[in-house]
């Protein structure tokens, strides 16, 4: 994570009259370039909590259902398509894929920002990881949304 750097040492904002400090207004990137402080990190923190809580139930249900109650051994395209013929299950899968992949993508961002310090390399790795994850998500959602057309053409 980037360190807070401001006018005063210690990462605080300007001292206020009568004690205390202003909130810091800028962050320094690892290469020292100052960046305006936005709310993105706050929203990402909130998103991780909300999606995390939802995923505890959604992902564990998904795993128990397909691995323990259905069983990979008995899994088939027919079984999946039968379940997806209900639009509510497709909606559940869109939500599960979106929450899980975006939660994972943000987690990967934390790791990339922790370990890759060179701005160029950081940008390159981020572009590759974001590209792969968002492509997988787009492809998954596209398949779930065009289910009806594909089903019609299969008949």
């Amino acid at each position, binding site marked *: 994570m980037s360190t807070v750097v401001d006018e005063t040492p210690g990462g605080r904002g300007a001292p206020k009259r009568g004690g205390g400090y202003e909130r810091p207004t800028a962050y320094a990137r690892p290469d020292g370039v100052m960046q305006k402080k936005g709310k993105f990190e706050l929203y990402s923190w909130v998103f991780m909590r909300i999606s995390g809580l939802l995923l505890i139930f959604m992902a564990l249900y998904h*795993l128990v259902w397909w691995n323990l109650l*259905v*069983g990979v*051994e008995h899994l*088939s395209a027919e079984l*999946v398509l039968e379940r997806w013929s209900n639009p509510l299950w497709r909606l559940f899968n869109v939500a599960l894929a979106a929450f899980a992949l975006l939660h994972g993508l943000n*987690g990967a961002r934390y790791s990339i920002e922790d370990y890759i310090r060179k701005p160029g390399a950081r940008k390159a790795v981020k572009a590759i990881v974001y590209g792969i994850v968002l492509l997988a998500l787009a492809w998954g959602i*596209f*398949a779930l949304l065009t289910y009806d057309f594909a089903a019609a053409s299969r008949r």
Partner: protein
Amino acid sequence: MASEFRARSLGHALRYKGNAGMWTWMLHRVTGLGILAFLIIHVADTAIVVYNPEFYDHTLDIYRSPLFRVAELAIFFAVIFHALNGLRIIVQDFWPLAMAHQRRLAWAAAGITAVAILPIAWLMLAPLFGLRPEPGAERHERRMRERGVVTSETAAGDHGASTTLVTTVSTEGAR
């Protein structure tokens, strides 16, 4: 940056802090990245089912190999741990009293995961050694019976069902 820890070796890195907090943090990261890697493949290959069911069935054969069964158990473990440890982090964020007991809670998350994975490991791995039927065998049996397909899984009994027999029945019967 007031001070920066620079590990001189892997052993040194692993001794750094080295208590429940560090280990669960590390495991949280590793499991998270592992789940993400699996998820990319899983979403991409499952989406194929809509356009090319035959090819999807072919990819399922890969998932049925013993190596992938162990990998699936690892995914299960990763998700349970990540869920419980994530829950611990959320609770600690909002409840100061929990923060005071963070070390104990970290061990609790790891402990509950370790206990929960045991029955799941039995359910998922025992069929490999012919010790119990595949998970979901009964449900599959019922489904097949409803469609009038007779399988030999019932005839084989509960405990004597060999893995090869179950495999033949399920993959052929389902299609």
